[in-house]
């Protein structure tokens, strides 16, 4: 049954593309706004082969990766501390709650003031945007660790440090992964926004620039590249999850 539905979807997609192509050729669609699908695919492949799109993607990915990694390195340990020590959590709580409601894109002008249009600006924006999902999920993960688990570790006479690394970190890692997973699309979105608002390269800038120059097919090609990038990052993440947390993936599969 599953395969049948995949086929349905596949044919629908194919059918829509064909219909699009026909409509464009027949002159029903305004070529300045919606060029034929073939033109877009053409543009896409030439941009890929010429290295233009990969270059832009690389530029975007660099910033994204640094911002993402920085956020993980700072906020996961912070989250663990906040989850374990209630006093620490209460101390930082007000500050976190004050900063949380700020929609991430709105931070871009601030970053632009301080960092100009350089990479650091985008890195900072991504760092800020990923902070809350990563932090809050980590805190949640630590807090939701079953008491019984910790008590079991204690009866076996484990030292505090051993408990931290052998019980606490593995136990909250699924939830940490959730935070990291949620931050992935956020990272992508913000790299695109920050490039659209203030940049001279990157895939986000590429799409906007193409639109401004009325190179419409290119613009769509850029969007296609973004969709593929988003999909690829997702798959990569799932793969990493399966490598690092095979036990959890198996457990979830069972529950389904």
């Amino acid at each position, binding site marked *: 049954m599953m395969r*049948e*539905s*995949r086929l*349905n*979807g*596949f*044919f*629908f*997609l194919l059918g*829509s593309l064909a219909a699009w192509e026909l409509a464009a050729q027949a002159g029903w669609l305004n070529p*300045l*706004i919606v060029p034929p699908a073939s033109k877009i695919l053409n543009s896409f492949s030439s941009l890929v082969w010429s290295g233009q799109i990969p270059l832009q993607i690389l530029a975007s990915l660099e910033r994204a990766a640094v911002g993402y990694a920085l956020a993980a390195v700072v906020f996961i340990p912070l989250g663990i501390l906040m989850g374990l020590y209630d*006093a620490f*959590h*209460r*101390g*930082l*709580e*007000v*500050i976190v*709650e*004050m900063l949380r*409601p*700020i*929609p*991430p*894109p*709105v*931070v*871009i*002008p*601030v970053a*632009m*003031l*301080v960092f100009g249009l350089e990479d650091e600006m985008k890195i900072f924006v991504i760092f800020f945007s990923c902070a809350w999902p990563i932090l809050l999920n980590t805190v949640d993960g630590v807090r939701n660790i079953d008491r019984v688990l910790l008590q079991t570790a204690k009866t076996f006479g484990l030292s505090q440090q051993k408990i931290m690394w052998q019980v606490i970190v593995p136990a909250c890692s699924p939830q940490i992964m959730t935070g990291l997973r949620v931050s992935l*699309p956020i990272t*992508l*979105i913000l790299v*695109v*926004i920050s490039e*659209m*608002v203030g940049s001279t390269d990157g895939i*986000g800038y590429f*799409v*906007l620039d*193409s*639109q401004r120059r009325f190179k*419409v097919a290119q*613009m*769509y090609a*850029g*969007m296609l590249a*973004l*969709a*593929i*990038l*988003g*999909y690829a*990052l*997702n798959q990569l993440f799932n793969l990493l999850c399966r490598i690092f947390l095979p036990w959890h993936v198996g457990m979830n599969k069972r529950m389904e």
Partner: protein
Amino acid sequence: MSNSKNFNWSGWLAFTLLLFLWEYGSRLSPKLQLYIPPISQIFIALGGLVFSGQLAVQLWITLVRFVEGYLLAAAIAVTLGVILGYLRFVHSFLEMLIEFLRPMPSVAIIPVAVLLLGIGDSMIVAVTVYASIWPVLVNTIDGVRHIERTLVDTGRTFGLSRREILWQVILPAASPYIVTGLRVSLSIALILVTTAEMIAGSKGLGFFILDEERSLHSSNMYAGIIVVAGLGYTLNRFFLTLESRAMKWRHGMSAREAA
């Protein structure tokens, strides 16, 4: 905040300390003052903007766009989601398309929208609608699909027609999922409105903040950010209140399941 009963002394203390650090730290160098003006200056600017009515105007513009985009997206997404969740056959056709469109960051649609609709209210609302549909759609489909067969059978054994089952069983049963989607799209809608205003707008809070940055009026910029944050917070609180009233049958259940 965690306990409304216990006032979080340490939290507020830390926060106040941070504010003090900001106030005096920023006065250390004139260059710093430009990028990160002292808190007092920001509040003075905020006051000025509020009194001149300037902020109110921009806030209203942004709010109207937000509400329009959010509600329109919700209506479309819930309707579509119920249809797709219920009619598996139809869903099988669209599933792949949805899978392909989802990973694309919705902000990438802004240039297309500018092409189609120029740089006005309709562009901004359109972009907001596009982005806000996804969480609600996906969650609604999920919710309708996960409805226990037994519930629908119960409706049937009582002789309910298909339409009655839709309204009296399926929608209420899927509502927790739908509400989750609506909550996520709340933040997304606000993000998209402010982003669209920044990238291709001429009015609204997003534009205002960027504009003030460009003219190096940093205090005004921060004041604008505070207002946007306040807007986001208020919208969230409002939503949570509505949610807890409508979903009180659910809240207890989740608490019990967690216990």
